[in-house]
């Protein structure tokens, strides 16, 4: 009878605790929004996965931290000099099992949640370049980073890269809304990193290698392209602009820029022909 | 919670032997450190080689094999001479020890001299630092190793003088053993570099 009562008490307490804990979950994002330090506006199709995972993890962490602080507070204020110390080495079987179990539970919930969601999101979205590359609707752009600006290149009507009709821009990337955009990137001098905060993603631009990054915008507008790898004194000014347009506006823009680039094409300017055949290795 | 003295008996607590064990632990740790450093360099070799389009790149002179093999044998001979020297030392034959140690040192010096001639030949034949990481890696691995050979020669020189002067047989043999440890390490590293730089 006694044992049963104790079990019931235990489960009840656990239930109440879990219920109370649910309240602060997701609370982290609300606090952030309220204070004005929310993440940049997410205008991507899949960025919400990252936003959600960060917020729920931060909520878990806040809960764990609060529990730790309460535990410490009790020890500091109630178990002070007036409290007799227990001669307990903490290495009895039951104690070891409890410590290991508690660690395992925290690990499975917090770390497990992170791991499972990250694996799914990577395979379905963020590192899934194959599906995006094979999608005929994907807009493909090559980006060359250099101190301290972003060159971008669109293949142009002939579909070939590094030819006269390529649309080449400086610090200026336009994409159509609701279409996947796949960017291959490199650098011609030091390591830079292509950062789209409004899409929640970034990737390094490394000389001698071609990296990849993709996204799909769901809203039109103008957004920041920032450099996210220290690249010299003017790293802070390596700013580009990402413009998301309707399909018609985008087509018009691309046609115009391609036309301008073709006019400005100089066959002798080797540096300007930094493009490469679209890399299919990945 | 009563006092608990160590179980081994006092007879085994010979100060010379204790000091030798302590020095050996130190030497082993130092060699672990050096191993990790060379390990980092071999890792670099591996990574650069895998990422290279062709290794060696086209248009470079062939790697010689005869002279490098000869110097490898010289280094091996040096190691053998050193071990023979230590055996004589353990028997108390100081003169023989010093003769054999000198042989070991001379072989080491020859190793460096002939290695240098290989470098000069290859450089003149067109293998230089503009040949990408292939050339850089070759010269660096062999030169860095040669630097450690020089350090080893210094240690052997110290051993030549300090071992006979030791105040006890234990200390005498200890100094020789630890010096030999370093020399054999340098030799073992060479085996790996020989294959990476010249053979493969």
């Amino acid at each position: 009878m006694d044992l049963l009562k104790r079990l019931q008490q235990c489960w009840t307490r656990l239930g109440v605790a879990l219920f109370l804990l649910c309240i602060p979950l997701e609370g982290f994002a609300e606090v952030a929004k309220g204070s004005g330090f929310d993440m940049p506006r997410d205008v991507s199709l899949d960025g919400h996965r990252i936003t959600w995972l960060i917020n729920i993890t931060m909520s878990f962490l806040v809960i764990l931290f609060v529990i730790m602080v309460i535990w410490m507070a009790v020890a500091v204020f109630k178990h002070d000099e007036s409290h007799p110390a227990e001669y307990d080495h903490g290495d009895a079987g039951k104690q070891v099992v409890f410590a290991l179990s508690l660690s395992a539970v925290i690990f499975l919930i917090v770390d497990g949640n992170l791991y499972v969601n990250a694996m799914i999101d990577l395979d379905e979205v963020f590192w899934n370049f194959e599906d995006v590359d094979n999608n005929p609707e994907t807009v493909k752009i090559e980006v060359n980073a250099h101190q301290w600006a972003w060159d971008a290149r669109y293949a142009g009507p002939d579909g070939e890269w590094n030819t006269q009709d390529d649309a080449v821009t400086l610090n200026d990337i336009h994409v159509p809304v609701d279409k996947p955009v796949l960017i291959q990137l490199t650098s011609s001098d030091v390591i830079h990193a292509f950062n789209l905060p409004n899409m929640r993603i970034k990737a390094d631009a490394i000389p001698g290698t071609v990296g990849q990054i993709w996204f799909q915008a769901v809203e039109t507008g103008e957004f920041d392209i920032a450099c996210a790898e220290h690249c010299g004194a003017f790293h802070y000014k390596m700013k580009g602009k990402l413009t998301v347009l309707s399909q018609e506006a985008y087509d018009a823009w691309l046609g115009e820029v391609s036309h301008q680039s073709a006019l400005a094409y100089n066959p002798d300017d080797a540096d300007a022909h930094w493009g490469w055949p679209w890399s299919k290795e990945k | 919670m009563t006092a608990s003295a160590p179980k081994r008996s006092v007879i085994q607590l010979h100060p010379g032997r204790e000091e030798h064990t302590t020095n050996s632990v130190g030497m082993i740790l130092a060699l672990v450190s050096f191993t990790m450093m060379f390990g980092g360099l071999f890792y670099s070799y591996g990574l650069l080689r895998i990422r290279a389009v062709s290794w060696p790149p086209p248009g470079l002179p062939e790697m010689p094999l005869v002279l490098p093999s000869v110097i490898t044998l010289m280094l091996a001979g040096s190691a053998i001479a050193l071990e023979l020297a230590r055996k004589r030392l353990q028997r108390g034959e100081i003169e023989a020890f010093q003769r054999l140690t000198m042989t070991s040192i001379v072989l080491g010096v020859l190793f460096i001299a002939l290695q240098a001639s290989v470098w000069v030949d290859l450089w003149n034949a067109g293998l230089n630092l503009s040949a990408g990481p292939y050339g850089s890696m070759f010269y660096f691995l062999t030169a860095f190793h040669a630097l450690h050979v020089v350090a080893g020669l210094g240690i052997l020189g110290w051993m030549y003088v300090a071992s006979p002067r030791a105040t006890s047989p234990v200390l005498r043999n200890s100094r020789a053993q630890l010096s030999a440890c370093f020399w054999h390490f340098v030799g073992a590293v060479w085996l790996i570099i020989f294959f990476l730089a010249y053979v493969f």
Partner: protein
Amino acid sequence: MSTNSDAYQNLQPIHHPPTTFFNKYIWSIDHKVIAKQFLWGGLIFLLLGGLQAIFIRWQWAYPGQPVPVLGQIFFSDSGGVITPGHYTSLFTSHGLIMIFWAITPMMIGAFGNLTIPLMIGARDMAFPLLNALSFWTWFTSGLMVLASFMVPYGTAAAGWTTYPPLAGNAGTPGWGQSLFVLAIFTTGSATIMGGVNYVTTVIRLRAPGMTWDRLPLTVWGQFLTAILNVLFVPVLAAGGILLLLDRWFGTSFYVAGALAGEGAGDPILFQHLFWIFGHPEVYILILPVWGFVGDFVSFFSRKPAYWYKGSVCAMALVSIMSAVVYGHHMYATGIAPLLGKSFMMLTLIISVPAELLFLNWLHTMYHGSMRKTVPMTFALGTIFIFGSGGLTGLPLATITTDLYLHATMFVVGHFHLTMASAAFLGTFGAIYFWFPKMFGTLMNDRLARLHFWFSFIGLNGVFIGQMISGYAGQPRRLYDPFQYAFTEHMLGINQITTYFAFFLAFGQIFFAINWFWSIFKKDKSCDPNPWQVGTLEWSVPNPMPVYNFKVIPTVTCGPHEYANPECIEKLGKDWQGQWETLDSSVSEPAPAEDTADEATDPGAAEDAAETGK
């Protein structure tokens, strides 16, 4: 038994103490003096590194405005204004100096040297000469760092991570960058020398009865750190050598892209080598603090350390795993997906032993009898701040969340909470704790508590501020962070963070006053064991003799024997010293009596003869 001690005494002979000023204070082979040398040296560089941090914070709060007073001294070429070029050097040298010239010498050089021989019952380190050499090598590297500030083109400016190609000749020309890399190599050699010494000493010179399960957690922390140093600093050396060769001899290990010419190297190779060192390095910089905290929490809760074996295993497990998680610094570089995912899993797993350590600390203080001494206050602060910092590592360990958080102030806040703040508070706790042993007097209690609260509030303020702005997306290492639309609104939070930094900096004055006043004051009477703690160093009288222990003690129990009812009954106090038995309360074993135990040492006479000279 006493004759066994006799033989042990002879293994570590008592030498004549040094007499000249040079041998006493400059070229000293006494680990206690070398510890002080490292402590002074580290504090000076801590001041320099801290000043650089203040300048960085100034630039973020008042972008482009001249720095008052100090600006004329340090940035006179630009009228006191921090330029973009200055700025890149500031954050680069701040990071490098704090890691290699402030924390390492203080936490490891000073406290490893001080605590290891004393706490294991030895007279000095295994290799005292090597010990002195390691200090002067470090000192030389410090001179190189200072020299790098005075060369044309200025000092290193490629970030503490020194990634090529930016760290190559084309990216950062001039002698400054090269000198700094050479300085890192030099201090690395000093660290390896120290590491070899510490590990050998702990393995070989433990007093009789000092078994592995009776070592204080402080010694375990230093021991594991030393092993990691021995293993992984050489890998940094390898990476650094290749970089210097690229800079000086035109090799092409890391050169790629348009600069490459005929053959390209691989800039990512450097990142692999760097982080194979770099991740273990962060554990190197926290393990000693975990040791201090583990011990202090037990000492000042007057209660045994909870599940000692679990804590030791946790620290060991973290050390073992430290090298296989390094790829989480490289998620954005385009490494193979399978490799990236493996690093993610391992990085998540390494959080578990750290969690366990926390649980053990919390369990130790719970149901204890806490004395809120200055060292305990610092230990509590360390636990608090490492708790928040450590937890925030989880979203950084995960690849998808890291896609957003990488290279933002979230990362900077995370490592400053775990590495800088926890190391800072833990090391200062250690200073206050061992100060009476080192300098013969307790530091002033009130000043110490002021120092704590200013530091604690300041550290929390600065780095929580950084985490907030990082969560909101502010990138790191930006001269002017407010150039972008998504960061325009962040001047306010950066200014508040800067005010906390000024508050933190101001609080250090209390320490400086306390430090100088306590060391140089005339009246220094102090109980040799003011904290009533049972580890071996507290059995040594003040001032400590050069040889530490006149008679090498025989260890009788673990380092956390508090609140043992049998002890309270038999010794009349709540703690048992590691040199004390419960049958009598002698504070030192009786001097050797050679007639006592002939049965156990028939060879003693023979041995004594051989030991001779």
